[in-house]
């Protein structure tokens, strides 16, 4: 047994070593190190794109697997009078603009979206934080909407603009055409056979199965086909990507 006094002295030594941790943080923040660290994301994206079939489906579960409570995260109620008015009116006047590199720009009403062929899927939502919830989602496939708008060949990414903001800027997300055209990528308006709750993104949220939760943009107001993500936000492809360096490719 170590005598108590010695233990205290050693603990003090440990505390004295704590400033060394500041050096670790300096390493973490160095631009060259950050460039090296981002190689991990590049390798994950390249390897997953190379190894995973474009159309490989995320696992679909049964109703017996549903989470009893589907947790919400991020914005649970978008601020502002405009959204409050939409919510009060049952989102009857909500419209989604489809713009950018398309031959036929669209402005879809919720009725238009519900009138399209629907896909229902019971999938697992994986938050970047580590928790998971299983829910049943219903909505049209994004590929149908993009086909209706006539996405041009030059389009490489689809950008989703949202009604919620955390701080000053509106939330946005983006994905490449492989995920945009994936059969399970839908614009969901129902969760567990009920109208999507506000906390989960009412009236419309993107389901981008095979990627982490922050990619699944809530409160979608516009869909834009673009050739490059430069000039959008800080250019990293999404709200959290711009702010705190979350990976743009969130497949792991």
């Amino acid at each position, binding site marked *: 047994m170590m005598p108590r006094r010695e233990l205290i002295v050693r603990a003090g030594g440990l*505390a004295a070593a*704590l*400033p060394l*941790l*500041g050096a*670790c*943080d300096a390493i*973490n923040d160095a631009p060259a190190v*950050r460039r*090296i*660290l*981002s*190689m*991990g*994301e590049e*390798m*994950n994206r390249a390897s*997953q794109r190379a*190894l*995973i*079939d474009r159309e*490989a*489906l*995320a*696992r679909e*579960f049964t109703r017996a*697997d549903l*989470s*009893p*409570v589907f*947790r919400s995260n991020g914005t649970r109620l978008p601020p502002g009078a405009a959204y409050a008015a939409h919510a009060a009116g049952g989102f009857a006047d909500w419209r989604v603009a489809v713009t950018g590199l398309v031959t036929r720009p669209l402005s879809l009403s919720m009725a238009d979206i519900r009138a399209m062929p629907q896909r229902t899927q019971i999938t*697992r939502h*994986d*938050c*970047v*934080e*580590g*928790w*998971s*919830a*299983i829910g049943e989602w219903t909505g049209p496939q994004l590929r149908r909407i993009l086909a209706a708008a006539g996405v041009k060949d030059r389009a490489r990414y689809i950008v989703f603009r949202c009604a919620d903001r955390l701080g000053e800027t509106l939330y946005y997300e983006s994905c490449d055409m492989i995920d945009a055209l994936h059969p399970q990528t839908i614009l969901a308006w129902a969760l567990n056979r009920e109208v999507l709750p506000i906390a989960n993104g009412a009236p419309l949220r993107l389901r981008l*199965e*095979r*990627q*982490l939760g922050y990619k699944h943009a809530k409160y979608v107001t516009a869909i834009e086909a673009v050739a490059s993500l430069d000039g959008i936000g800080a250019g990293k492809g999404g709200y*959290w990507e711009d702010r*705190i*360096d*979350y*990976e743009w490719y969130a*497949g*792991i």
Partner: protein
Amino acid sequence: MTDLAPAPPPTRVYRHRLPTRIWHWVNAVTLLILLMSGLMIFNAHPRLYWGQYGANADYAWFAIGSTADTGYVRIGAARVETTGLLGRWTDAEGVEKTWAFPGWATIPTSYSLADGRRWHLLFAWVLAISLTLYMLWTALGGHLKKDLHVRRDEWSPRHIWHEIKDHARLRFPTGAAAARYNILQKLSYIGIIFILLPLMIATGLTMSPGINAAAPWLLDLFGGRQSARSIHFIGAWALVAFFLVHIVMVMLAGPVNELRSMVTGWFRLPAEKAK
């Protein structure tokens, strides 16, 4: 040193070949970074579940949390107060924090899930690539056959029990026997290289929604994403336990000699003890 009779010249053996030495030190750095960045990732949601899903409303078999003034760790129904260390602690500036693992144990030291993930996911590649190369070299380069293969006579329960007793009494082999691994070393090294580290990689991949689409059998193998996450966490502490035993053994067996052999490859055989 006080013996008057001249000591016999020490016998040196070339114990660790270059791939083993490189892999050992790459691993030392990689596993430390993976552990500390992993603790940061865990801090984002310090609860563990079994099964396909698991979020705050669901039963967590393991949780680190804090109440108004105490930190605690809960395993099943057992709850231990851990104020000052886990769940509630004071940082270097004297500010009280309530994340699960304290800043001195995580990469980076201040809360950043994004940065923790960047370190973790890059060094996961380092681990996966170096482990794959080392496994190939071990299997094909003779290391497995020459050093790690458990001979038939070593499998006898009497022999294993004898080795365990010798270890517990800190009786280490001397002379030529010290140059070879005993069965406990063989089993732990085989276990680390061929079972525990691959298990860590496989459970890590099972947490990837992208990989799930390509290899859904991983979900079946581990019983779901949250089960894989729990196994990943337990496996990390199994590696920490291995590390602690490993360090104690190095200290007891002669740290200078052991360190030198893992740097230069050359190991000085401990002289035979007088009977």
